[in-house]
């Protein structure tokens, strides 16, 4: 069948739309025959999805309307599985195929996974994210598969003239006891009428599973490792052109005017589209398009020139609107008197830094808009493209190709809108792939957070009362109509992971909503890692006041009900696997932390030491309990990956705003973690229930807190800000140094700072300036030397780069500071 035929069938089917009532009466199963195969879907599955989403913790939207279509049987007996969930690395195509295979009565290789276009497959308004795909699809897909198998059994029985009970099904073949058989393809041939099932088929019990719970090689890897797999950035079409769009440089910039004269003359430029809010180039090659884009002289109204410190002041507890999201016992009222323990924590903005920039290929014709994109939500993109073009959604067919990472950034896909506008303008297919600077400066980012924690111990040495006040830029609200925000008050994405999990009689969590002047949004786990960093480091602080071991202290606050008993089990499993409390190598220490997210608890123990003034993580031991695991190796991979991505935030990641601009423009000033900093990772997989829970985000929860707690255990210093930047181990840096040795170290500085510290490039004083030396603390000087101060760093005065000297040992830096101190 050609894609046109499919589209036509689908369009016609839009008018054939049974009501929900009919579906329910009909026990849920409905088939419809189209040329060449059986389209099959089950409405009750759809209703279930909607139900799960509605009851899930804050999962937005729902799967609404339109004929559901999961499986399509082909004459050659292949079963096409129309996949609505996108593969962005998390292994969902393999996992959902395992789930379907369990009930389809077909061979593994017979089932072919295809990406469901928005005009073909089931409509999935939720998209892929929130660690929700397996938990929400597990039931519906098995039911859909079983219902189809049973309908095929009935039809085979009719065709072979035997009773349905006489038919056995295996490997996609229905066989009567007498030996006659029909393949699925043969059963489907020529059938126009399908009887609806009278009841929902009984599903296989877990003890008989053949596919679910068994490690399976990923179905997408072979093509990915040979380079054949097609991602959004790789999409191609005959006659395609390339687009590039001019972006605002400042976070509040608005477009004023553009001078395109220089750009027009660049070889290969086909056309330049200038509207009152959009400037884009179409060219024969990507290089020409980007060159022309860079040659366009745009005038912006920069808006307010925000500084980092102003943003941090904005995102502070006490600002914005407060909503209590947890209040038990007397809540925070119990914290008005007595001996209080309190602390503040902060986390920075961060980028998603998916390595495949967002990208889309769009062909606009009068009655069909075809979009091939890297997107986590084809249906969102369908709406955005339709709106940008002023057409009906039902002529926009969005097909998700493979994604080179998503992490929450690819829910929307601005590149599809760019490409659609440009394609409509030139009448040919246009591909737009963002570059790295667009990704850093024009996307949305993980917002700043601020947490204020307070606790009081009771006479028994346990926490009697605890409060967590949490401020954050928006996470989920930017993606919903304004009404959602006024109705809910607190942004469920922002406070994710912020509620107090421990058994504490009086506890309260309050979320302060502080929208930021730049775009903020979903980032893997949403608020999970940063909130857990605050809460779990603070628990360690309280344990210290209570004079108790951090593990023991936590265990004493867990187990009062089933939920915390499960947390306790996971915590114990991690501690045991990590040999918590056993002697460690000299200079090493461990830290522990616990989180729970989408019902999946995870505990981690980090073992660290210091190397050249930096935290070195040697080993992370994790225990996680995601319930039923569909593909255990996939669970392991998600855990390893989350820990490493989290460590990147712990060590490096911080987006800074200076003079109204995000300073990061590429990985040179926003470095990610590499193999060099990657620790050994040991994972304990627990499976306490037969129900699958979310897995893509939960393991990122504890890592920052585990490392912060290990650092405290090692040094006695509490770091309350991400990324973790240790201050030097001695307070009196200069006294610990030797000026004579320091003079030798200083040889590396002479080129810029002159003989005996006589100058600082770009400044009118030198390192030997007595006034400057008097007002600078030893640790400040130490810090600049070790970490440097990039030209775009908020503290930089000259705009010129002071390189970091992380390669020097602490002692060498003490020495050079002592040398500087002795200069004047």
């Amino acid at each position, binding site marked *: 069948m050609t894609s046109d035929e499919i589209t036509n069938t689908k369009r016609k089917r839009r008018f054939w739309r049974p009501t929900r009532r009919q579906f329910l009466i009909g026990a849920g199963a409905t088939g419809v025959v189209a040329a060449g195969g059986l389209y099959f879907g089950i409405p009750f599955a759809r209703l279930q999805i909607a139900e799960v989403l509605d009851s899930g913790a804050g999962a937005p939207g729902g799967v609404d309307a339109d004929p559901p279509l999961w499986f399509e049987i082909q004459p050659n007996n292949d079963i096409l599985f129309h996949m609505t969930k996108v593969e962005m690395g998390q292994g969902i195509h393999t996992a959902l195929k395992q789930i379907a295979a369990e009930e389809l009565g077909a061979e593994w290789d017979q089932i072919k996974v295809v990406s469901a276009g928005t005009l073909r497959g089931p409509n999935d308004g939720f998209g892929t994210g929130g660690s929700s795909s397996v938990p929400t699809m597990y039931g519906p897909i098995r039911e859909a598969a079983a219902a189809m198998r049973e309908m095929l059994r009935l039809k085979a029985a009719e065709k072979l003239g035997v009773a349905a009970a006489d038919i056995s099904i295996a490997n996609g073949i229905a066989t009567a006891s007498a030996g006659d058989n029909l393949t699925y393809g043969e059963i489907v041939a020529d059938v126009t009428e399908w009887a609806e099932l009278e009841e929902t088929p009984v599903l296989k019990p877990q003890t008989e599973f053949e596919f679910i719970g068994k490690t399976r090689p990923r179905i997408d890897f072979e093509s990915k490792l040979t380079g054949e797999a097609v991602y959004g950035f790789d999409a191609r079409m005959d006659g395609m052109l390339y687009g590039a769009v001019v972006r605002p440089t400042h976070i509040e910039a608005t477009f004023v005017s553009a001078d395109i004269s220089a750009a027009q003359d660049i070889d290969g430029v086909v056309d330049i589209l200038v509207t009152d809010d959009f400037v884009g180039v179409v060219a024969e090659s990507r290089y020409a398009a980007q060159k022309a884009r860079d040659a366009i002289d745009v005038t912006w109204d920069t808006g307010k020139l925000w500084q980092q410190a102003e943003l941090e002041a904005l995102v502070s507890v006490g600002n914005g609107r407060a909503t209590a999201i947890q209040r038990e016992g007397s809540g925070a009222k119990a914290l008005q008197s007595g001996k209080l323990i309190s602390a503040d924590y902060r986390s920075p903005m961060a980028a998603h830094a998916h390595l495949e920039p967002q990208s889309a290929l769009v062909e606009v014709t009068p009655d069909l808009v075809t979009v091939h994109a890297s997107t986590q939500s084809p249906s969102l993109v369908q709406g955005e493209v339709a709106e940008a073009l002023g057409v009906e959604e039902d002529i926009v067919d969005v097909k998700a190709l493979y994604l080179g990472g998503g992490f929450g950034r690819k829910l929307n896909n601005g590149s599809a809108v760019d490409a659609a506008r440009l394609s409509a303008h030139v009448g040919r297919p246009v591909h737009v792939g963002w570059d790295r600077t667009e990704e850093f400066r024009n996307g949305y980012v993980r917002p700043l957070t601020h947490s204020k924690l307070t606790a009081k111990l009771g006479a028994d040495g346990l926490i009697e009362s605890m409060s967590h006040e949490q401020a954050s830029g928006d996470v989920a609200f930017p993606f919903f109509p304004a009404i959602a925000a006024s109705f809910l008050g607190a942004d469920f994405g922002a406070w994710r992971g912020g509620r107090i999990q421990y058994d504490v009689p009086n506890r309260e969590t309050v979320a302060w909503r502080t929208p930021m002047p730049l775009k903020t949004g979903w980032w893997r786990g949403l608020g999970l890692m940063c909130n857990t960093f605050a809460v779990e480091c603070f628990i360690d602080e309280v344990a210290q006041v209570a004079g108790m071991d951090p593990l023991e202290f936590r265990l004493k606050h867990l187990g009062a009900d089933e939920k915390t008993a499960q947390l306790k089990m996971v915590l114990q499993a991690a501690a045991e696997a990590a040999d918590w409390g056993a002697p460690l190598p000299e200079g090493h220490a461990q830290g522990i932390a616990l989180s729970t997210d989408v019902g999946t608890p995870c505990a981690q123990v980090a073992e660290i030491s210091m190397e050249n003034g930096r935290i070195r993580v040697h080993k992370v031991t994790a225990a996680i309990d995601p319930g039923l695991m569909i593909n255990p190796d996939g669970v392991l991979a998600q855990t390893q990956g989350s820990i490493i991505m989290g460590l990147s935030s712990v060590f490096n990641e911080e987006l800074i705003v200076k003079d109204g601009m995000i300073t990061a423009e*590429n990985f040179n000033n926003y470095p990610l973690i590499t193999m060099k900093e990657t620790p050994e990772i040991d994972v304990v997989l627990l499976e306490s229930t037969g129900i699958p829970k979310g897995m893509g985000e939960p393991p990122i929860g504890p890592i920052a807190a585990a490392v912060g707690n290990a650092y405290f255990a090692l040094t006695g210093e509490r770091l309350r800000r991400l990324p973790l930047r240790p201050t030097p181990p001695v307070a009196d840096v200069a006294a610990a140094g030797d000026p004579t040795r320091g003079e030798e170290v200083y040889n590396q500085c002479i080129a810029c700072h002159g003989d005996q510290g006589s100058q600082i490039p770009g400044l009118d004083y030198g390192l030997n300036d007595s006034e400057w030396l008097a007002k600078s603390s030893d640790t400040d000087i130490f810090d600049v030397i070790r970490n440097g101060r990039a030209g775009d760093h908020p503290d930089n005065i000259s705009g010129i780069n002071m390189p970091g000297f992380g390669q020097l040992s602490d002692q060498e830096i003490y020495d050079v500071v002592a040398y500087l101190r002795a200069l004047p």
Partner: protein
Amino acid sequence: MKITINGEAINLDIDPETPLVWAIRDHLGLTGTKFGCGGGYCGACTVHVEGKATRSCITPLETVADKAITTIEGMPQNGELHPVQAAFLEHQVPQCSWCMVGQMMTAAAFLAENNTPTEAEIVNAMGSNYCRCGCYVRIKAAVTAAAETMQEAN
């Protein structure tokens, strides 16, 4: 401009300043080579130029005229995956896999020079290729395994 790619000599009549990554992907249609950052930082675009791992996003086409370029499409020999590819598959290394072609090209060039690497040498050789999904533990295991296969083959 003449370049040799995966053993085939090809004439490319495009702007000689075009970054090699676009020439390979957009003009020759070999989309196995990926684009990640455009600044040579992440390594996703790594190809071999005369056997050396080279970041194609910062390599202008004119600098590789008459040189032999190998991309992932040219790695399998006689229908068999290159030992590095086979090891990455065996160890189920990738997640999204956008960086993996660059990782494998980096590893293959490195192991061709040194197929008895120490762990530290592997970390050093692979230490400037980013993987945002965080597959470093498995990448290391696969490169170690590939080294062993390559030793046996010699």
